């Protein structure tokens, strides 16, 4: 059974249909990357999957439970999904350690001691331990994103959603974040990642979903998608974004 199964998902904002019947599956331990041109619905799809955005129609099945039916426990669902945002979204009044422990204490109901131990362990995992007392305004972009990844990871989610995790970083900082995500990939953390970054997509994905105008046009491994794909729309897109020398 797939961890996440999406069937014919539609999302309409006023008169604009952003998702036009998306189907996808994600299994436990798998990492899939969603790519596609700007405005094709990638981020909307990710937000629909944890119900930050309410889908218009279609089905989302998470661990065998249909979460698009009325009366679903949205908070329970979200507690199982770690979400990493493009612009980090760290709580700016809390230092790195407190950003990580807040959810552990309030949501996972851990004691302060347990939460701190867990935070230390996770911060070590991504090389952020030495920055634990810094506030978001004192961190570089790469450090902020690593802290945001730790915050999500510390909650022991079933799956991690990453929404353009490297888009607002310069290349050097982006590499820093890619190496952390790659480490999670090697540790078999289940992930669904939206990105424009072909380098990230290649090094962390089991397969890539190509989304265009609200529909899944293709799903394949990076090598087959990136180079000389028979579909001209896909070929054209990757010619513009791929530089993997």
């Amino acid at each position, binding site marked *: 059974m797939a961890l996440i199964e999406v069937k014919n998902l539609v999302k309409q904002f006023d008169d604009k249909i952003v998702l036009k019947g998306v189907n996808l599956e994600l299994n436990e331990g798998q990492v899939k990357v969603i790519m596609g041109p700007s405005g094709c619905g990638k981020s909307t799809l990710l937000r629909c999957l*944890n119900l*930050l955005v309410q889908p218009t129609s279609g089905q989302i099945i998470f661990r065998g439970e249909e979460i698009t039916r009325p009366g679903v426990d949205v*908070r*329970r669902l*979200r*507690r199982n*999904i770690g*979400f990493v*945002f493009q*612009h*980090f*979204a*760290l*709580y*700016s*009044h809390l230092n790195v350690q407190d950003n990580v422990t*807040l*959810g552990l204490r*309030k*949501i996972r109901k851990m004691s302060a001691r347990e939460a701190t131990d867990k935070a230390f362990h996770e911060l070590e995992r991504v090389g952020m331990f030495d920055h634990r007392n*810094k*506030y*978001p*305004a*004192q961190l570089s972009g790469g450090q902020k994103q690593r802290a*945001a990844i730790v*915050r*999500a990871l510390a*909650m022991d989610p079933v799956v991690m959603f990453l929404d353009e995790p490297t888009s607002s970083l310069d290349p050097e900082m982006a590499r820093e974040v890619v190496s952390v995500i790659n480490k999670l990939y090697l540790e078999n953390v289940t992930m669904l990642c939206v990105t424009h970054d072909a380098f990230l997509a290649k090094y962390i994905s089991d397969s890539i979903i190509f989304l265009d105008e609200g529909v899944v046009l293709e799903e394949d491994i990076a090598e087959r998608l990136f180079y000389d794909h028979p579909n001209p729309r896909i070929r054209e897109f990757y010619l513009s974004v791929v530089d993997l020398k």
Partner: protein
Amino acid sequence: MTGMDPFLHDLIVFSPQILAGLKNTVVLMAIISLTGFFGGIAVFYLELNGNKICRKMTERYISFFIGTPLLVHLFLMYYGLPQLGIHISPLAVSVIGFTLNVSAYNARYLMTAYNGLDQMELEAARAQGFTPAETFRSITLPQVLRLSVPSLTNQVIQNLKDTSVAFLIQYQDFFAQVQEIAATNFEFFKAYMMAGLVYLTLVSVIVVAARGLEKRIALPGF
């Protein structure tokens, strides 16, 4: 006491009443600053997280109390309500009237600060599984309060100055005692200059405390 300035002489004679009035002023200011602070937070919470009707009502409440003079509320309660058989003491009228007024202003300050918050942080909290109440307590309120310190402390200063209108509903505050001295010796200039200096001294204490608080809660990196 021969040769002593008559005003100074009256000041010494009236000093027990003046000190009692000063105490009443400080007590009223402290009470309304506290009740107005918590009232403001409550109204702000309802405006953010209440249902549609609740949000509409809080918006009207704020507009009404910001849009009408405080003195009208105080007179309405102190002189108007007895005609309906409801009698309330000057202190109670002052506390209720000021609290309703100050809460409206404070709620507006908090809402202004809220509009400057990074909304992504609130989305991150939702994505993490926080309830609206938990998000308010742990993320929204600490940030909004920090951003609002200058406005909220200015409101405390305003509260102190506004307590001087309470003498119009027979509350025996500092200004009421100053009026009494002035009416006794007709030294209006000296009496009101003295009142001004006392208020300025109290305001200076609040300003120093407020700046200290601002420094204390400033975040590194900002």
